[in-house]
């Protein structure tokens, strides 16, 4: 079957290139911007998702994992008594000042636990042993800290809130949404560093015993901790993410970016297809004169839009993936899951078909009698 749509599209190469470039630009904009956003958002929940805690007990109205408030550490005893709880431990997550060799003072996010290995924290250890942390004034520092703090080596010392700690190892992938570098230390030492957390904890991490339902155990914990909030891992990750998306306006910002990307795509595709339709109006009149219907012409415009969508998406996606290593060098993670890529593809097809529909009205009114006009 002869494809007038494809032939016409390729016949006017410049217009085809402009159309495809418009779609590719929109696709790249959406994939990279939203991918960066998702990559950034991943940092907001990376510790929640990598720890083995099924349930997190927090102080009331804690907005996200980084901004913890403290509550009595003895609460953990009540939680340990709840049916279905296999293990429950206190955890401190607290911003603290760290003194750098240069004399500058910076902020870091301290994670303090009594037994790190029971909670899969830290989950990616470059060097050192987390179980050693409880044996002295030791810390593990995440390698990403080098961007803010400068290079560090195992065996060096750093002062946190006036206390000297020896770096006994390095971790990878541990990050916070606020970009404050993550440092791991023993729970009691972290507690002792700051007056506000004496005899207190930031969270209680809970592991549910096999055979018990997470939601039901969470409900039981809620019943015995009336002054706390209790979340399953998924709920807590969603709350932490939503805080940054909603409270900071990042979600709105991203929505505007996606909207602009789609708008650019629609304008470019609609403009080029409409111009093309106007220029080919006599051809469409001929199609009608030889027995074609409006539907035959819609199919031509729809096929052209579909080709522009597929080619534009392929180029846009290739550009986005090509940019990932470059952005990674800038420590920017573009997170594009297969589902997200598929969603963008479906959106691109809809965008192009929607743009093509703007030309439908123009071609629907074509009088086939115009073929007799010189």
């Amino acid at each position, binding site marked *: 079957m002869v494809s007038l749509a494809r032939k016409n599209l390729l016949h006017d190469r410049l217009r085809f290139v402009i159309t495809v470039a418009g779609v590719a630009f929109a696709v790249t904009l959406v994939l990279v911007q939203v991918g960066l956003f998702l990559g950034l958002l991943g940092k907001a929940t990376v510790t929640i998702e990598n720890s083995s805690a099924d349930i997190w007990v927090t102080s009331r109205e804690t907005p996200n994992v980084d901004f913890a408030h403290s509550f009595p550490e003895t609460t953990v005893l009540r939680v340990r008594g709840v049916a279905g709880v296999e293990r429950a431990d206190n955890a401190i997550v607290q911003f603290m000042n760290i003194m750098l060799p240069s004399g500058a003072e910076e902020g870091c996010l301290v994670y303090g636990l009594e037994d790190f290995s029971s909670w899969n924290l830290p989950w990616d250890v470059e060097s050192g042993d987390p179980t050693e942390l409880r044996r002295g004034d030791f810390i593990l520092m995440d390698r990403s800290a080098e961007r803010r703090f400068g290079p560090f080596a195992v065996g060096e010392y750093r002062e946190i809130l006036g206390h000297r700690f020896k770096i006994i190892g390095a971790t990878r992938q541990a990050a916070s949404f606020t970009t404050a570098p993550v440092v791991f230390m023993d729970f009691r030492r972290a507690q002792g560093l700051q007056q506000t957390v004496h005899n207190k904890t930031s969270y209680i991490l809970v592991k549910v015993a096999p055979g018990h339902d997470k939601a039901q155990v969470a409900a039981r914990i809620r019943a015995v901790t009336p002054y706390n909030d209790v979340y399953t891992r998924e709920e807590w990750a969603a709350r932490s993410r939503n805080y940054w998306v909603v409270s900071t306006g990042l979600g709105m910002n991203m929505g505007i970016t996606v909207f602009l990307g789609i708008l650019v795509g629609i304008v470019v595709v609609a403009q080029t297809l409409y111009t093309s339709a106007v220029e080919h109006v*006599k051809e469409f009149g001929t199609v009608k004169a030889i*027995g074609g219907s409006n539907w035959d012409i819609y199919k031509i415009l729809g096929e052209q839009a579909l080709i522009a969508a597929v080619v534009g998406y392929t180029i846009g996606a290739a550009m986005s993936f090509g940019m990932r290593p470059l952005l990674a060098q800038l420590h920017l993670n573009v997170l594009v899951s297969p589902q997200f890529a598929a969603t963008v593809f479906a959106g691109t097809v809809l965008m192009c078909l929607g743009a093509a529909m703007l030309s439908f009205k123009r071609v629907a009114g074509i009088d086939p009698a115009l073929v007799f006009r010189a």
Partner: protein
Amino acid sequence: MNAMLACCDRDAERERDATSLREVLAVEDVRKTFVEGSQKVEVLRGVSLAVDQGEVVALEGPSGSGKTTLLSIMGCILTPSAGRIRVAGREVSGDESALRDVRKRSIGFVFQQYNLFPALTAQENVEYALNVKGVRGRGAAAEAARVLELVGLGDRKRFLPRDLSGGQKQRVAIARALAGAPEVLLADEPTANLDTAVGTQILELFQKLAKDENKGLVIVTHDPKVRNVADRVVGIRDGRLSNPQEH
């Protein structure tokens, strides 16, 4: 008595069948009125014309006489305000899908400006028209090749319109009109953009095709050469046929 009546009925039926076989296009007392602002303009005022298989009819008239409107009505592109149209023995109703169906099955157009698809080769131009008419695949390719051979363009099948001369373009347009074996060919000033020699060749081709392929052919024209190939020349003036004559 009854047997005699039945016999007469059969004779009349046979006569009707013979008539409908011979006549491929007929318009009867066709009128067309356009509304321009508050004014009604009557472009066709009771036109009747019939075209038979293998017949070439030339339709002549000055600008504004109504010949293109009549051609559009005969081609089922326009509906008349009053009157009847019969194409290939079938009464045509005013319904757009019915008109389209008649255009697909029974009518082939040849235009003054050729109206070829510039992005398609000669073969594809014909094949696409067949696709629109519902003929697909190898059948369409074979039929397109056949009609291009018929118009003498067997060696130009892969050429784009821009690489063809005016005469060759018009031959492609004729091949496209022939594709799908319509009973009627309607040509609008087919020689207007061609020089005398090429124009004569095209008219001779039209005449040959009408006879060999048994098509009813109506040519709207200002070109006096058409008189040489037409079986009948019909004049139109102020929306009325003026001088129907045998040639």
